């Protein structure tokens, strides 16, 4: 098992360089078809992408959590690993002016980008904080819905993350999280690779282990509401059929 601190620093550095455009091709982006096409392929509609600032859509992620979260006007939403802010801004439109959306990310370059996008979109009901998802800087029982898009797999301690999510949710609060899970054994060299970890593969759990982790954190009615095979150009052939994107719902 890798050192948790090393993993975190590696993930932080990688996503800082993606935010600064030094890293032209990220794990979850298909350079050949472009960012917008890729965003559509993982579940965003053309209208959704057109209605938020361009800089927010970075071609990252493996689903569209706000599409399935059934957000209501006035709700308080927390996005784990908010990046350029795409899901924060989509959620902000759904919860309206009486709602509130908070994005937490540990990469300052991503937060700067998100903040620029707040100005471009003139959003009044969003805020961003630098923070770790394993140690959320959020009060107990204060959030209606937690969303996240292809981020929890990057955490070296997923149980700690889901326990924190449970803590900050109000009673009966819910999560709608898009994430990567694996089926069967992955080759050892891939499991051990830092690059593969930042590409959302090496840190991913097997499906049952992932669902059990959420249950262990205290959640009830843990359900996969959608899933599809996850495959990227240039992905190692040995991973064929073993990587799945799931959308998980659960209640406190």
């Amino acid at each position: 098992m890798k050192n948790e601190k090393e993993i975190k620093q590696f993930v932080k550095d990688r996503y800082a360089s993606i935010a600064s455009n030094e890293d032209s091709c990220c794990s979850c982006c298909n350079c050949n078809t472009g960012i917008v096409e890729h965003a559509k392929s993982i579940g965003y509609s053309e209208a959704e992408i057109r209605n938020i600032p361009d800089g927010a859509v970075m071609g990252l992620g493996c689903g569209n959590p706000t599409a399935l979260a059934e957000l209501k006007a006035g709700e308080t939403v927390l996005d784990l690993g908010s990046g350029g802010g795409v899901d924060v801004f989509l959620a902000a439109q759904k919860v309206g002016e009486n709602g509130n959306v908070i994005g937490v990310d540990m990469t300052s370059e991503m937060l700067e980008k998100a903040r620029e996008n707040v100005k471009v979109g003139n959003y009044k009901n969003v805020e961003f904080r630098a923070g770790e998802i394993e140690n959320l800087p959020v009060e107990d029982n204060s959030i209606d819905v937690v969303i996240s898009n292809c981020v929890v797999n990057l955490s070296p301690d997923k149980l700690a993350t889901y326990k924190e999510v449970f803590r900050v949710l109000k009673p009966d609060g819910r999560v709608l999280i898009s994430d990567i899970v694996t089926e069967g054994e992955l080759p050892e060299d891939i499991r051990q690779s830092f690059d593969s970890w930042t590409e959302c593969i090496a840190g991913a759990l097997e499906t049952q282990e992932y669902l059990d982790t959420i249950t262990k954190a205290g959640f009830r009615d843990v359900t996969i509401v959608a899933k599809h095979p996850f495959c990227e150009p240039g992905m190692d052939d040995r991973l064929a059929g073993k990587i799945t994107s799931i959308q998980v719902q659960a209640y406190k």
Partner: protein
Amino acid sequence: MDILACPICKGDLELNVTEETDEIITGTLYCGKCDEYYPIEDGIPNMLPPDLRE
């Protein structure tokens, strides 16, 4: 800002504003229990543990 909590003890924070427009731009959040300051810069509270801060 009102549902911010210390990431270590999850307790309340004391806000100190140095620059403010229609939102808080610069300042600090202080946790008395942990004796830890969290800076607010460019409108973003930095709630990372000290060892992960830049």
